[in-house]
């Protein structure tokens, strides 16, 4: 049985696609056959972050409309075994997705994959609803600031009322909080909400805290999921999150201000 995980947030620009790319890659690296689907029809980004933009021939909408088979549209990742990407259509809009079409694609994928990561578009409209509707689990990506937290709260409410699990009365969607762009120094300065604040407001279990890092932007621009760079703190944080997602108990890191050693200060640490 494939597990369908939606990566969602409500608010835009908080790191959904970055997270989808890294979590999907992390699961595949650990030997789980994983597909990442870009639900952001019209604003396709996942292919860029995964570095496969030149290899997009057919897309999600083509498969839904029957213009291409799933096999033709799935792009096999060149770096990571077991990893496939289903890109969104750039020329269509969100209305091109239908619940029946999405369900069919997910069912077909489920026969052959262990994890299906649905990279949700921002907002709470049709596209986002499609991405979350069939989910078993949800990773809610949140930045430590009030508007992002409120939007995440909103999306959690929608998950628990409008997903298929909610509608048919099955076990509720399992929720995970992933706090991204976290900067402990700014938390101390009172410019950012702390992990505790966000956990208190959203009241869902914490999957991970990804520190604010230049490495994320760099990795995105290079088309390489940041999790593959295990020397970066962000990469390590994502690896921890993947491990927790698979049920392991991993201590949270990067919550406190890093104490730079004298040596590091002289050399100039990250």
């Amino acid at each position: 049985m494939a597990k369908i995980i939606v990566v969602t947030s409500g608010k835009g620009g908080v790191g959904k696609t970055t997270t989808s790319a890294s979590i999907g890659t992390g699961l595949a690296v650990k030997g789980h056959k994983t597909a990442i689907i870009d639900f952001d029809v019209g604003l396709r980004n996942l292919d860029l972050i995964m570095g496969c933009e030149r290899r997009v021939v057919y897309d999600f909408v083509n498969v839904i409309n029957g213009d291409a088979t799933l096999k033709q549209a799935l792009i096999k990742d060149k770096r990571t075994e077991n990893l496939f990407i289903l890109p969104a259509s750039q020329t269509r809009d969100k209305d091109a997705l239908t619940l029946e079409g999405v369900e069919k694609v997910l069912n077909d994928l489920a026969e052959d994959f262990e994890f299906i990561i649905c990279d949700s578009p921002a907002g709470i409209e049709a596209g986002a609803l499609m991405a979350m509707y069939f989910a078993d689990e949800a990773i809610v990506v949140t930045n430590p600031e009030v508007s992002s937290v409120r939007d995440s709260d909103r999306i959690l409410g929608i998950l628990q009322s409008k997903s298929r699990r909610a509608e048919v009365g099955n076990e509720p969607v399992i929720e995970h909080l992933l706090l991204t762009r976290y900067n402990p120094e700014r938390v101390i300065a009172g410019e950012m909400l702390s992990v505790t604040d966000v956990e208190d407001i959203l009241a869902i279990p914490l999957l991970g805290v990804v520190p604010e890092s230049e490495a994320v932007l760099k990795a995105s621009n290079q088309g390489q999921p940041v999790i593959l760079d295990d020397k970066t703190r962000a990469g390590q944080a994502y690896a921890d999150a993947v491990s927790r997602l698979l049920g392991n108990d991993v201590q949270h890191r990067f919550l406190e201000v890093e104490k730079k050693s004298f040596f590091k200060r002289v050399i100039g640490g990250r």
Partner: protein
Amino acid sequence: MTDLCFRLKGSVLTTVVLELHHFTDVEFRRQLEQKIEQAPQLLQQSPIVFDLDKYVGDPADIDPAALVQLCRELGLQPLGFRSCPALNGAIRNSDLAVLPTSSGRGTPFAEGSSSTNSAGASRTARESEEDSGKQQTARVPSKIVTQPVRSGQQIYARDSDLIIMSQVSEGAEVLADGNIHVYGGLRGKALAGVQGDMTARIFCHSLEAELLSVAGNFMLSEDLPEHLWKKPVQACLDDGTLYVEPL
């Protein structure tokens, strides 16, 4: 022994009695609509008996069919006529029951007294809309919510209390005709007694609300006493003014 198809039983039925004083289409409709609006729970789909004992003038002037039709349009279920010898002919044509004249004294509907009349006679509805606004005609179980109420969600407990076992997020709204209990942080809006119950209260574990309201008397977060912020409190009305006190 054959299986009995039915069994006849005697039963006492509580209904609303409409004591007609005089009847003109327009005025009757206006007043009845007003009454129903005041106590929709009590009167919507309510069975009703017309009593013409107090009718001023000649009851023969009333068109029973028009009266029945009007009541049905407003959602009542007319059962029959009482105390109306002069009208019997016309009433039979309206297919409703003709009931014997009441032997006891019916309780005036709007006074909310708790007296009942003697055995066998019809009893009027005891509860009225003016009886502290608390309508206890039937016990409605409290609505219990175990999940957090998230931003953008609205939960309304009609005719009952609302119990939230979790938190109420900023941007969420919880409403009840009765009391509201929140066993978690109350960060959104809470409105108790929305149908006008002045005795309704709001209880919460941690007061961080955007708005508290009891029977339409509200307080915004900026009006809440600072020393009670994030404290367990209750909010209720005292002489029409909303106040918050620690639990």
